[in-house]
């Protein structure tokens, strides 16, 4: 019998792991080594991009691995934010503790929502989820207890000193990003991750191999909602002000789609690369306003038509790079 060795990592991926660990430690120390005056704005910027990144990673999990292209993930983003705010303002929960609770609430509500959303498939699912997100927006816009259409402020954080608040928000955001990447990576490397890839490639064939497709899709939908809710709760802890139009804006999903498509859909590196590009473009061109947004839209169209695999997909094919290998290579 031939000896078979299963290879699950490469030299690059092992190096990436160490570089990643060093980066995390350096980033975690930011409040201590950042130059006086700019640390605060750097941290705020990091928190914002972290929210985009987490949200985009969850969209990638849903669309790129689960095959469910949704334009309604902002429903869970806003819901997580509102639950966090209400727990903080009305129930006296520490808003930082309320962040994971908001995410949990988003995951819980995703179960009944999935019952409705899963009636539709493909493109219909995409717009159907958008309708559901609009139901969320209108529901909160009509709730006077949270300020109705004009929104309200997170008052629960008033007693906390500004520097402490900013540092805590930053560390929690960093922890959430690291946790999201790690958990998605470990999940995709597991047996269940393999099942998910099989479903993505061919649902019928996967079902015939004994994979519980319906249960798996529901699980992915709920996890993606949890992540979107986490991003939302985190964003509004950093932002201190929430309104239905900001919380349930379709732009959240639009930017997530942009990041995932540019970076490369269906690979963990995709949204990370996409978020970095988005951040850089935002820094350089966002002052151009409408022209900048038109450019983003056009870029997404061009990449979708001509570079279906995105930037990282291209790099992977060209150089065989993989920072987060999920495949199993057999060596005889």
């Amino acid at each position, binding site marked *: 019998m031939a000896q078979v060795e299963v290879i699950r990592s490469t030299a690059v991926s092992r190096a990436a792991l160490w570089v990643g660990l060093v980066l995390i430690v350096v980033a975690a120390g930011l409040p201590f080594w950042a130059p006086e005056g700019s640390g605060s704005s750097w941290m705020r910027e990091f928190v914002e991009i972290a929210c985009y990144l987490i949200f985009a990673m969850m969209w990638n999990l849903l*669309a790129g691995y689960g095959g469910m*292209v949704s*334009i309604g993930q902002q429903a869970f983003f806003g819901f997580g934010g509102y639950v966090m705010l209400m727990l903080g303002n009305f129930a006296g929960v520490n808003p930082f503790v309320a962040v994971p609770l908001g995410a949990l609430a988003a995951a819980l509500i995703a179960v009944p929502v999935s*019952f*409705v959303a899963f*009636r*539709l*498939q*493909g*493109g*219909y699912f*995409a*717009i*159907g989820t*958008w*309708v*559901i997100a*609009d*139901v969320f927006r*209108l*529901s909160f*816009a*009509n709730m006077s207890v949270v300020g109705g259409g004009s929104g309200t402020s997170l008052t629960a954080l008033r007693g906390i000193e500004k520097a402490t608040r900013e540092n805590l928000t930053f560390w929690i955001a960093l922890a959430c990003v690291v946790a999201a990447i790690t958990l998605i990576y470990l999940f995709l490397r597991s047996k269940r991750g393999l099942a998910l890839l099989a479903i993505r490639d061919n649902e019928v064939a996967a079902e015939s191999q004994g994979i519980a497709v319906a249960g798996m899709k529901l699980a992915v939908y709920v996890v993606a909602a949890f992540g979107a809710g986490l991003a939302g709760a985190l964003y509004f802890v950093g932002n201190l002000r929430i309104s239905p139009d900001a919380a349930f804006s*379709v732009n959240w999903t*639009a930017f997530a*789609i942009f990041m995932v*498509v540019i970076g490369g*859909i269906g690979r963990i590196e995709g949204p990370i690369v996409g978020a970095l590009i988005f951040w850089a473009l935002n820094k350089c061109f966002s002052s151009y306003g*409408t*022209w900048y*947004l*038109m450019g*983003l*839209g*056009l870029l*997404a*169209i061009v990449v*979708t*038509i001509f570079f*279906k695999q995105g930037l990282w997909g291209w790099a992977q094919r060209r150089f065989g790079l993989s920072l987060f290998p999920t495949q199993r290579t057999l060596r005889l």
Partner: protein
Amino acid sequence: MLETLLQGMLLGGLYCLFALGQSLMFGVMRLTNTAQGDFIMLGAFAAIAGMNALAALGWSHGSAPFVVMLALLPLAFGFGYALQRWVLNGTLGRDPLPSLVVTFGLSIVIQNLLLELFSADPRSIETSGLNTASVALPAGLAIGVLPLAIFALALLATGALQWLFNGTRLGRAFRAVSDDKEIAELMGLNSNTVYALATAIAFVLIALAGVLQGMRTTVSPADGPLLLLFAFEAVIIGGMGSFWGTLIGALLLGITQQIGFRLDPGWGIWVGHIVFLIVLVLRPQGLFPKTRG
């Protein structure tokens, strides 16, 4: 109550025109055009620009909006044909993602282009009083002439599309590529051209809907997404592939929204969404389905 129902039906007529193009594109090539609402806005603003151009030439007769509309329809036909032939055909396939991302990207481009050209201010198409004229009905009711005309156009457009689909060679080609693209191509149809013609016709309806929306009320560049949701709801409630179904779906949506608005102005659209979701749960194939997803 009677008045609410009547107003809801007239509103539904407009929604039907929003939705017919979507219904056609769903039916023929299973294409979800997420920029549907933004294209409707593009039509409305193109008409506004055309009116401005006519006014600049010193021609501001009461028939100006209709002249602009008639000029716009063939343009929309050509635009739709070209868009499908050279952009959207390349995105069709088993994976819904490419077509969704491309139309979603178009939606963002159109919204921001209109914002840049026309600013965020709401505008409307000047109809020299047509939008406020009304006819008196018995029982003290009065209905607007323009909404009534829109409703008649919606009936006409639905009937015409249904006839095109069931009674003409082109309609047979539409049904053939919809049922089985490969076999239809073996029979000598060029599916790329058939798809392009379907989108061209859909865009004529989109332009018509845009001009009428601009006449009836004010339009602003950010209105598109909500119109897309209404159009989508009408199509799904009515059932895939049936234009009369789309009309019924649009009327149902218009009436429920109007009842909702009557109960509380803040909840009108919400009530419409909820009725859509209820239909989805109870009858996911819609009320009068013809083609299968």
